[in-house]
């Protein structure tokens, strides 16, 4: 092993660069896998109590406010316990170039003239409890509200952009008339009947679109799926870089390395000794890259809140949540990174050396 390490150190520049790039690939792959897995796990836990069935109305493929009277017809379907109109929507703040989500809470809504805001809005606007903020209504007239509460900082992943508002204020701001709601929220007796009830609703009210809770959870389970946009590009680049590595190694050794093998054979080393040396060489580089890359990725995702991914996640938005993910680590992902990087690299290091080591030392050194 001492000889192997000395041999590696003799080509410090080349092996150092190799180790750095290799570590970077492992770091990138592990960061993406840690981030996406942790986010999916958190979504599954946090959204487990989201509404059971939501009924939206669509007109020519677009959302439209739903008549509250639709609820009475849906209530007649066997198995439906309750139907409640839900009021929510968006507000674009032209001064801060930010989109907010307006929500009218079903329980304990704020008093008229008062709003609750998410921690993200509070941070961006530097607005705090007791301050007054103004919004422009659908009719172009300004309306002012007093901030009654700020939603907890720890819940930013679900509430950073929320504005909790009373029903009269919401209707006055958005222009949605009474008798209409954004959508309807259903409670159902038996979770196994979600799909059947959704089908009955579509038959009863063909201009509606039911969304069941399982679909919400599945949406987030497939979030940042490997086939989704940028993710496939990252995986593609990493795979390509790795193929170049492996190709470089598998297609042959440098003249210096061949000469070294020839000398070792000439002084009495067996082919197996040389293969063992090359095995250690491959393992030293790949194992170091694997451990360092994984540790850096863990720190990046769970201690720095994925600082390198933030510009990508922000897009063009000026309002974004600040959150620290819970470190859900999938052992399967770690094993996959190990077997996709360490094992093939180590093998591709041995193959050309075996070819060189089985040739006559005299021919190799010439």
């Amino acid at each position: 092993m001492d000889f192997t390490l000395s041999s590696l150190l003799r080509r410090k520049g080349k092996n150092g660069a190799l180790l750095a790039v290799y570590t970077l690939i492992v770091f990138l792959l592990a960061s993406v896998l840690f981030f996406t897995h942790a986010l999916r796990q958190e979504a599954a836990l946090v959204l487990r109590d989201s509404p059971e069935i939501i009924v939206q109305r669509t007109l020519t493929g677009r959302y439209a406010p739903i008549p509250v009277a639709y609820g009475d017809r849906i209530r007649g379907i066997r198995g439906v316990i309750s139907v409640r109109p839900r009021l929510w929507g968006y507000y674009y703040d032209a001064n801060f170039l930010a989109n907010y989500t307006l929500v009218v809470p079903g329980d304990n809504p704020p008093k008229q003239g008062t709003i609750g805001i998410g921690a993200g809005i509070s941070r961006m606007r530097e607005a705090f409890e007791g301050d007054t903020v103004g919004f422009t209504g659908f009719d172009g007239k300004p309306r002012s509200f007093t901030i009654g509460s700020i939603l907890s900082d720890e819940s930013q992943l679900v509430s950073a952009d929320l504005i909790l508002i009373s029903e009269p204020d919401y209707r006055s701001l958005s222009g949605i008339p009474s008798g209409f709601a954004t959508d309807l929220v259903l409670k159902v007796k038996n979770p196994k009947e979600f799909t059947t009830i959704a089908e009955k609703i579509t038959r009863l009210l063909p201009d509606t679109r039911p969304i069941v809770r399982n679909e919400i959870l599945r949406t987030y389970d497939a979030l940042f799926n490997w086939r989704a946009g940028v993710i496939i590009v990252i995986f593609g680049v990493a795979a390509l870089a790795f193929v170049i590595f492996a190709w470089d190694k598998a297609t042959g050794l440098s003249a210096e390395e061949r000469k070294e093998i020839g000398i070792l054979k000439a002084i009495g080393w067996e082919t197996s000794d040389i293969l063992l040396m090359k095995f250690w060489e491959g393992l030293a580089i790949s194992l170091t890259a694997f451990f360092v890359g994984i540790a850096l990725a863990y720190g990046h995702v769970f201690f720095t809140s994925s600082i390198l991914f933030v510009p990508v996640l922000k897009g063009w938005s000026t309002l974004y949540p600040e959150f620290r993910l819970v470190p859900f680590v999938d052992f399967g992902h770690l094993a996959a990174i190990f077997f996709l990087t360490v094992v093939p690299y180590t093998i591709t290091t041995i193959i050309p050396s075996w070819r060189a080591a089985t040739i006559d030392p005299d021919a190799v050194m010439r």
Partner: protein
Amino acid sequence: MALRNSTLFLSGTAALFLLFIAMLGHSVYARTAALPVLDRKAELVRTLELTDLCLFTEASYTRHLAMTDLNTPFQDAPFSFEHFPTGALVSPPERLVRSHGQRN
């Protein structure tokens, strides 16, 4: 006396392995410690009847990913491109894909 290369390498690898084990230990500990926070977030989702994570706020169809439809990302113009950067990060909900053809 100078340390042998192999001693340095094995010590370094052992240290990295210990760091790896510590990372796994931290993951298990932090997960348990975060359960109350996750419960509070789930309670907020339940009381406010929320459906989505607030990951992206630039476009309605990525802000409320589970509620989106196939038209919104392409606005009103036929043949127009979906132009918000976060639209390149996420896939449409399975429900839409299922009802409008296969992805692969």
